[in-house]
């Protein structure tokens, strides 16, 4: 492709992806009570409301709590599934791994609908535990794929050396395998946590309005007449997401973890 054409195209894409955030950022610092852009008078009043009023604080707390526990659950499942696949290299390991890929292959509504019926049937509809487990299980695909890169990069020699020196399988896992796959597990954890914080459909179908998360709160506000607090909430979570990813890029080799270079 011609260099000018290439640059034009990539700038257009960048604009399309970044522009919505700039507009939301502008609306969130506009003192005007009507949603409008560009801002006429600057103010942080919508952020103050977001972080002081319980209407918003409770959904924020719910979202963060669900994300922290669900991501832990997800990574533990992904780690165990990858370990089994790596250790056994058999049909059983492959089956467990394939099951973990499953949720990503289906439209989100099917997962959400199934979860809704399931939790209603066992009497846990509307409980926060239901959302946590559903998020933990349904987002497992991401850490599963990322951690599998870590296991693929494990050299057999290192493990063999550890065993020859008399280490038990548990010691080998704790001292050799786990430290090597840890950066992949951290990346998987961070991604599940931020996806969980931002997820709407499953949370809504599993808990309805009983456990209001931030996306549910934002969606309801947008649908039934909204104030600029919605923009400040959207912006706060966008910044949170970008912040976590920036920290992640500083402590890990993000490009390598996403498969950008050979392990």
């Amino acid at each position, binding site marked *: *492709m*011609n260099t000018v054409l*290439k640059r034009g*195209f*990539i700038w257009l*894409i*960048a604009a*399309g*992806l970044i*522009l*919505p955030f700039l*507009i*939301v950022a502008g609306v969130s610092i506009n003192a005007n009570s009507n*949603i*409008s*852009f560009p801002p006429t008078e600057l103010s942080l009043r919508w952020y103050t409301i977001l972080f002081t009023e319980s209407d918003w604080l409770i959904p924020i707390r719910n979202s963060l709590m669900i994300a922290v526990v669900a991501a832990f659950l997800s990574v*533990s*499942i992904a780690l*165990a599934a990858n370990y*089994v696949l790596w250790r*056994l290299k058999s049909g059983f390991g492959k*089956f467990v791994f394939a*099951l*973990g890929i499953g949720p990503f*292959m*289906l*439209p*989100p*509504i*099917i*997962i959400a*609908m*199934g*979860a809704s019926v*399931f939790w209603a*049937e066992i009497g846990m509809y509307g409980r926060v535990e239901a959302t946590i*487990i*559903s998020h933990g*299980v349904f987002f497992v695909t991401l850490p599963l794929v990322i951690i599998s890169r870590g296991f693929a990069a494990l050299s057999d020699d290192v493990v063999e050396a550890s065993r020859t020196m008399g280490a038990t399988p548990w010691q080998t896992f704790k001292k050799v395998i786990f430290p090597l796959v840890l950066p992949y597990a951290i990346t998987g954890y961070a*991604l599940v946590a931020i*996806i969980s914080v931002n997820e*709407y*459909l499953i949370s*809504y*179908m599993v808990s309805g309005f009983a456990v209001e998360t931030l*996306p549910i709160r*934002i*969606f309801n506000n*947008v*649908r039934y007449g909204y104030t600029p607090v919605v923009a400040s909430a*959207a912006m706060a*979570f*966008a910044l949170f*997401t*970008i912040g976590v990813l920036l920290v992640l*890029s500083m402590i890990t080799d*993000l490009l390598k973890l*996403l498969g*950008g*270079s050979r392990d």
Partner: protein
Amino acid sequence: MRHFKPAHLIGMYPLGMMCLFFLGPLAFMIVVSFYERDPLGFYNVAFVWDNYAKFFSSFYYTISMRSIWSSALGAVLVVLLAFPAMFIITDMVRRWQLFWIILLLSLMCLSEVILGFAWLILLSESSGIPKFLGWVGLWDDPRSLSPSFAAMLIGFITLGFSLVALMFYPQMAQRDRSIEEAARTLGTSPARVFIKVVLPNYRTAIIGAVVTMFVYFLGVFVMPTMLGRPQDWNMTVIITDKAVGDANMPLGAALSVIMLLFTLVIIGALMFGTRKERQS
């Protein structure tokens, strides 16, 4: 039990969790799809085909066709944009690649609700593109561009772009550039190299990405409700409406089961096609 190893025991944890909380809910959904609706509660235990029979009414048929059309169009458009973009990005220096990866990851992780809301403002009469076009004199009577089918498609593209781009990333970043360089040295134009050398190498990846996005867009809820008109709403909106709005879980479950079967057929066809291609 002769071949039973500790790893099998560890494997019971992910296996149990996935069976109980992933396959279990799908199985429940299938069972409930045969139940009867209880106007006073959720449902009564029964075995009826009524919920499935309703799918064949013209209302659900029209919505199904509409869902397939919007999802397919969205999937093709998003891959058409993401593929060349990622091809250019993977040739950038490491610093810019990192910038793009963080941007794409941020988008991938961001809520559909936030993205939809952002586009809602951007397309609105009072703050976004229409206001700007009116201000520069390109539009005499600026009006809101949403809700509309185009606005919904823009929402789909924003939602899927990062996913598709990140799917292409490993293969593209690690590609053997020597073939492209050789073709260029022999005097082939960059556009021709892209079409004749690059594209054929990614045939399977492109088809996979289109199918993945198609299935993903079938199940999207927020973008159609926020940016689309009621006549643009897809099956997901109707399922949610029936199951939660009308408290008709059996009908919602039956419609989801039909979508599940449709998805499995598509995935099966993709796997069969890929295997055949590998064999030939």
